[in-house]
């Protein structure tokens, strides 16, 4: 698929050049396209990230070009499939920098792939907007590296904030063994104290476990637990939710943004009723109030994506949209594609409204999102409702 895509891109490019030459239109020939490089996990275990990301980039590069391009030049997407492999990501990033000579890189579906590429872009001095989640990407700040997705630390803080507002101070955490689960659990443990939350029980389950009643029974028997947070991804959280109701735990249950999809509600059935979780505004685009400044952006992206690909929009595609738009905005403000000037413009991004929230970058913050990026949702009658 990758090869076909590249061939198609090359073909389109060639056809365009020839057509321009035949018609003797000098403008398009003289103006080199702006090259946006990308490496994404379009196949492999992280395909659920890379697939919507690639589709989004293709869709919006096409749309931007149809609207006249950027700085009077067309955009050209050069994308490779790194298949979730950090080693491949490095190879492709080198190719993007040395052979394709791209102007900016928007990509890196996973944290592993992103971190493998960081030394290369730092050395080459090319603006790189990562689409991966972990805090380590922008902490400590790296001169040329930015990222668009919110972090799991922010999800923890959002959940803890909601707990505090309900008068909850002592909680139990139950998490799976996957990378997402462990990273989020670690971040939650780290920021619990400063959010005045005490974690009195910390249980876990293995990948593929089919029953969590033992862990939940232990949590139920722990004195003082006022709420339970499940840091999890995939099948685990749905089973936790079902088991939770089965053994009749009554304190509130919180899930993570890892299961913020209709799928989770469908799999958990009635048991999901009353569960709260933090999620990106994109998932509740249509039910946001009209006064919400983010509504216009997320509704537009959702309609565009779903109309084109006939599949449900995901936050991951949204990260790619934000990455591309941040780069384009920065180029416009810099008035050129000069790498250093685009980098400076990126760092100076203020008040950009994206699918993940308002982005305010600074020299200390290369992500620029705050907690408003997350919305607190509650499952009611099998549907999401916004918690005020």
């Amino acid at each position, binding site marked *: 698929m990758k090869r076909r895509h590249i061939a198609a891109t090359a073909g389109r490019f060639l056809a365009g050049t020839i057509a321009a030459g035949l018609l003797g239109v000098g403008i398009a020939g003289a103006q080199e396209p702006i090259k946006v490089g990308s490496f994404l996990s379009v196949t492999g275990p992280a395909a*659920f990230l890379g697939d919507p990301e690639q589709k989004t980039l293709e869709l919006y590069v096409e749309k931007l070009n149809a609207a006249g391009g950027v700085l009077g030049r067309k955009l050209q997407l050069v994308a490779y499939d790194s298949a979730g492999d950090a080693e491949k990501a490095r190879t492709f990033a080198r190719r993007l920098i040395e052979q394709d000579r791209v102007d900016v890189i928007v990509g890196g579906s996973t944290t592993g792939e992103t971190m493998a590429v960081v030394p290369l872009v730092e050395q080459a001095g090319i603006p790189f907007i990562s689409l991966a989640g972990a805090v380590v990407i922008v902490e400590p700040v790296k001169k040329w590296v930015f990222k668009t997705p919110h972090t799991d630390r922010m999800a923890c803080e959002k959940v803890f904030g909601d707990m505090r507002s309900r008068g909850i101070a002592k909680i139990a955490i139950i998490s799976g063994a996957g990378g997402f689960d462990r990273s989020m659990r670690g971040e939650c443990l780290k920021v619990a104290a400063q959010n005045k939350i005490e974690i009195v029980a910390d249980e876990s389950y293995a990948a593929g476990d089919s029953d969590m*009643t*033992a862990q939940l029974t232990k949590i139920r028997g722990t004195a003082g637990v006022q709420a339970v947070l499940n840091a999890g991804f995939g099948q685990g959280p749905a089973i936790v939710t079902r088991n939770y109701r089965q053994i009749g735990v009554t304190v509130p249950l919180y899930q993570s943004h890892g299961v913020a999809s209709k799928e989770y509600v469908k799999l958990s059935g009635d048991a999901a009723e009353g569960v709260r979780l933090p999620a990106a505004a994109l998932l509740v685009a249509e039910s946001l109030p009209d006064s919400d400044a983010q509504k216009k952006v997320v509704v537009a992206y959702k309609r565009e994506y779903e109309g084109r690909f006939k599949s449900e929009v995901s936050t991951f595609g949204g990260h790619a949209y934000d990455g591309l738009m941040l780069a384009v905005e920065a180029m416009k403000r810099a008035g050129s594609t000069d790498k250093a000037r685009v980098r400076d413009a990126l760092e100076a991004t203020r008040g950009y409204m994206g699918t993940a929230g308002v982005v305010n970058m600074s020299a200390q913050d290369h992500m620029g999102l705050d907690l408003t990026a997350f919305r607190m949702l509650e499952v009611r009658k099998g549907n999401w409702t916004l918690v005020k």
Partner: protein
Amino acid sequence: MSPELAQYLLSGITIGAIYALVALGFSIIFNASHVINFAQGEFVMIGGMTTVSLIGAGLPLPFAIVAAVAVAAGVGLAFEKFAVEPARGAPVVTLIIITIGASIFLRGLATLVWDKKLHALPAFSGHKPIEIAGAALLPQSLWVIGVTLAIVLALSWFFGRTLPGKAILATSHQRLAAQLVGINVRTVLFISFGLSAALGAIAGILIAPITLTSWDVGIMLGLKGFAAAVLGGLGSGAGAVLGGLVLGIAETLSAGYISSAYKDVIAFVLMLAVLFFMPRGLLGGRITERV
């Protein structure tokens, strides 16, 4: 008994019954061929996923179940015919490697035929938990335990009282002698793959309402089922059930009283300890003596 202990035991028995069903499938094929069929977990997956898509196509649950078991049995028979039989006469290790290959193939096929998403089946008789000594048990768990019992009884009748069953048993004990008295050893192998695939599918359907099902559900269940079969004594039906229950209860008790992070470690260490002192498993030795 404290409510906690009751809950751990009930959960352990439910998980154990699931492991036991998968372990039974391992035992049947092992009996017929001394091959450990590592594609056993994939039959579990095929059973669950086929039922999900048949229900999605509008079939009522009982029909969907019967059809899914038939589909899985068909896959099992085809697997024997096209992958195992051509390699007959090859060393057992080769056959085992073939089953590993088949399991990877079947998983890949499942992602193409279906998708990579999780699916849930409706519970056969509702979600309302039953209270026993302060512990909650799902009606579906009773289905799992009940059907496991019924299958064990049916299998012991099949192997002890019917001619085809006795033929399979005879083949497992002495292949050459069985052949000499006129048993068609090839048919025996063929039947046992179909039987064990059907069993796996039944397990996959029964547990889908509890554990959900997806293309890769067979990996972990296959591993645990294999562990249960070894623990109970490979080839022994009662051993498979006992092994499954011991493994399941060991897991929940260690998650409850020691640490959920190490529950699998504890369960597997227990298994190793048993095998160290009883290399044939809990019930394996006795079966051999009876011969």
